[in-house]
């Protein structure tokens, strides 16, 4: 029964919507304030100086497209793979800062505000839950309720 629910089409669809919406929402403020997001990336103290701006400019757009594609059901597995990979990198970045450097930095997850609420370890748990959703989509997706299917039904139905 539980296994049935876990692998059900609706469960995958729900996870796609949750993960997709989270990333679309997360990308918007970063796209609007690339300068502030670059500051946050810099504060992670992980990347070499020359890569910081490039990442701050690209990452929100990757998040936006993967999020939209997940919701719309286009390149579902690829989008889930990219977002899961980003979540792992993000977890490593947060862990490095919280547990090794001992600095509770602003994560820059949903806002680029320079002194936004810092959450440290709590953030890691959220991150891992989203990572779980990403993996679930990656392995159990059966392309249910997707734009390509809808298009096929509406326009290619013979």
């Amino acid at each position, binding site marked *: 029964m539980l296994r049935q629910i876990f692998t059900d089409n609706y469960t995958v669809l729900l996870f796609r919507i949750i993960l997709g919406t989270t990333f679309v929402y997360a990308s918007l403020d970063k796209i609007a304030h690339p*300068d502030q997001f670059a500051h946050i990336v810099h504060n992670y103290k992980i990347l070499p100086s020359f890569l910081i701006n490039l990442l701050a400019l*690209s990452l929100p*757009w990757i*998040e936006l*497209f993967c999020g939209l*594609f997940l919701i719309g059901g286009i390149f579902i597995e690829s989008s889930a793979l990219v977002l899961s990979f980003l979540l792992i990198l993000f977890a490593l970045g947060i862990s490095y800062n919280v547990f090794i450097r001992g600095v509770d930095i602003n994560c820059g997850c949903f806002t680029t505000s320079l002194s936004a609420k810092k959450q440290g370890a709590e953030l890691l748990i959220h991150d891992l839950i989203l990572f779980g959703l990403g993996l679930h989509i990656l392995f159990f997706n059966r392309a249910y309720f997707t734009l390509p299917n809808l298009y096929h039904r509406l326009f290619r139905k013979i």
Partner: protein
Amino acid sequence: MSSRPSPKKILYGSFYLVILGVSLGILYNSFFSKKIPLIGSWDNKIVSDSISVPNSYDPPSDPPAISLSQAQSLFQKEGILFIDSRLKEDFNSGHIPNSLSLPYEEFEDYFLSVKEKLLSYKQLVIYCDGTECETSLYLARILQDEGYENIKVFFGGILDWKKAGLPVEKS
């Protein structure tokens, strides 16, 4: 209806998505009003007295930066007010003793209530987390624009203060 894509297809798809994001990010930036350079200069600068400051620090228009030892000696003097520019909850979890909380992000909410108080001090020393946090600098600039003089920025912030084993107060 749709078959599951092969792992190779998934990997290729991911690669294209990343390329799409990077290209659009760069393209959008080139037309965006808040454009940033593709390659920024983020390394901290070192100013006089070996003080590490953020790259955006621009003396002499910005208030002078002070080192940990200078902050320590000012701490022992009369008429010096230390101002913490971090969020109130960060301030509450540990700050330099007797400092005043004036969060940069909520400046408008807090400023009116402390406006007069600030005038009664000879010197204001502003700090936040450490060199990676720049709200101390931003707050110092605002206060400077408000007409306050004798402002100093302690870029080492609470991190350097704690590292040196100096006293920390909790609210």
